[in-house]
């Protein structure tokens, strides 16, 4: 499936840039076609990398330097003051605790929400492919349709539902909301993935008399690592990045990091401190970025496995 072209750097011509720099030494490997390909890819890479560069350098600059107005420039005297301020002492109203409390709240929300939503979606996908029942496809179709509805539509009735369940303003409420709204895409991924697995194994297990859960835990799960990784990344990043559900359902004592980011950036007290804002932005983005960079290859492999079958 994948050509596993991990960055090895063993083979002679080290980088494309070097080769171009060495100019017109015609080597069959570097055809004009390859040069075009690499230049397009490098151009796009610059587009993708520029904001990251700007975010980091701005957060390391001092305010006078920022006001000088050169976003390309590296910080003259890089320092982490803005980061420390953003983390420990940036203010919203009277509360000046920075992002730190929000970080832990986000952890408290993300871990259970991710586990519950993925488990339920995996079971859904499995049931939809291997244990169809009358109407199961209709449920799935409505579910996919649901993924197109703006969340704002559900906000009000969901408040009423969680109130009736007596869990409004608690962690349970956020977990349920994330499970419900993560369900369409995750179920789609798991369903497609299970459809791509060979059905013979499942049928053999059925003949041996294995039941719903036994097959799920003993046969399907061990084969599903790639798609679980995809689901994990989608959910961890998605839930970590969520603002709307956190602010409405979690209750004040559980406000996630994104809510505090918004409070810090938008509650301008005096002149906006762009370096602190950018530091807060970077800090909020660090967790999903880390998750993504650590699991990058797995993610790609998992998407490949999950998305191909329609």
């Amino acid at each position: 499936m994948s050509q596993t072209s991990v960055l090895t750097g063993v083979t002679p011509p080290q980088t494309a840039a070097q080769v171009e720099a060495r100019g017109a030494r015609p080597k069959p490997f570097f055809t004009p076609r390859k040069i075009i390909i690499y230049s397009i890819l490098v151009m796009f890479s610059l587009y993708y990398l520029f904001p990251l560069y700007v975010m980091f350098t701005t957060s390391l600059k001092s305010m006078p330097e920022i006001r000088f107005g050169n976003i390309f420039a590296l910080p003259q005297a890089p320092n982490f003051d803005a980061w420390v301020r953003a983390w420990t002492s940036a203010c919203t109203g009277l509360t000046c605790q920075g992002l730190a409390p929000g970080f832990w709240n986000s952890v408290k929300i993300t871990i259970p929400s991710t586990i519950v939503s993925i488990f339920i979606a995996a079971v859904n996908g499995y049931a939809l492919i291997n244990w169809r029942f009358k109407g199961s496809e209709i449920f799935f179709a409505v579910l996919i349709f649901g993924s197109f509805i703006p969340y704002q539509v559900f906000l009000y009735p969901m408040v009423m539902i969680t109130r009736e369940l007596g869990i409004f303003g608690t962690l349970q409420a956020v977990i349920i909301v994330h499970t419900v709204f993560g369900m369409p895409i995750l179920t789609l991924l798991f369903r497609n993935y299970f459809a791509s697995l060979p059905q013979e194994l499942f049928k053999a297990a059925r003949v041996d008399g294995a039941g719903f859960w036994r097959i799920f835990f003993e046969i399907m799960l061990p084969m599903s690592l790639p798609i679980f990784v995809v689901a994990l990344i989608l959910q961890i990043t998605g839930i970590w990045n969520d603002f709307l559900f956190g602010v409405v359902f979690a209750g004040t004592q559980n406000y996630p990091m994104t809510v505090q980011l918004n409070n810090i950036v938008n509650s301008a007290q005096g002149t906006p401190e762009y370096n602190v804002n950018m530091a807060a932005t970077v800090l909020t983005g660090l967790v999903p970025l880390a998750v993504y960079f650590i699991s990058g290859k797995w993610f790609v492999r998992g998407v490949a496995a999950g998305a191909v079958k329609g």
Partner: protein
Amino acid sequence: MADTALPLEAGTTVNRPGLLNRIFLHNLPAKIAALPMMATVLVVFVGCTVWTIYYSFTNSKLLPTGKFIGFEQYERLFSTSRWNVSVSNLIAYGLMSLVFTLVIGFVLAVLIDQKIRFESAFRTIMLYPFALSFIVTGLVWQWIMNPTLGLQGTLRNLGWTGFTFDWIANPRMVLFALLIAGLWHGTGFCMVLMLAGLRSVDDEIWKAARIDGIPTWRTYVSIVIPMMRGVLVTAVVIIGSGIVRLYDLVVALTNGGPGISSEVPAKYVYNYMFSGGNIGQGLAAATMMLLTVLIIMIPWAYLEFGGKGRRT
């Protein structure tokens, strides 16, 4: 539809099942396991949708307690220029975003699929924005597009005084500003999906095409792309649902401005339901969004689910 699993079920259902049995007991564990999904579908997606439609015909203000007033909310909706601007913005942005995301995603995937070096480095660079939230995306691009301290100011300070990049403050260009940020966030994911699709195409097909002397671009267009149907569907579902929901990015990047030139429907819904304290109006707008999605989705759903038992 249920027939695929039925023969295997024979051992457990000795007596010929009656209708009730068929509905409730057939594949019972699967049904129990699927209860959360059924609950979600019935209570949230169907229940809340019906609730939304019902209350869009009332004059509810802050609480859903209003009286039935027929189509008044809709009449007002369509005579409101902010709503009409929101709709045309969403159509313009949506079409551009869908086309560019698919095309850029596909082209990048094809380029990366040319047995190039540093494939995983390129992939990583292109995909990382997807891990960031729209709030973060919006804040960074807002900073880059800041007329005095961002890209424009920098290049002018460096001596290129005629350089203009004021899209964020220019009503005619602001949708393109949104597009730049939106594409930055989403094209990498589309590229990964497309790459997966390309890699799933059998090498034999490529060999056969080469032997027949079909040019590479034609092989892509008339053989490979049709074979990638599954990936394309997934990609369109994911991109499309993101477009209809477009909200966070607008709020973080432009907040609907300048003027109302980058307003979108989801923002209208939110503003009138919560800060405007007019639930009826917000829900009427939401219902129109639902209707639009339905019109787009029904043909697709028919294609996707109409042919029963297509899959083994």
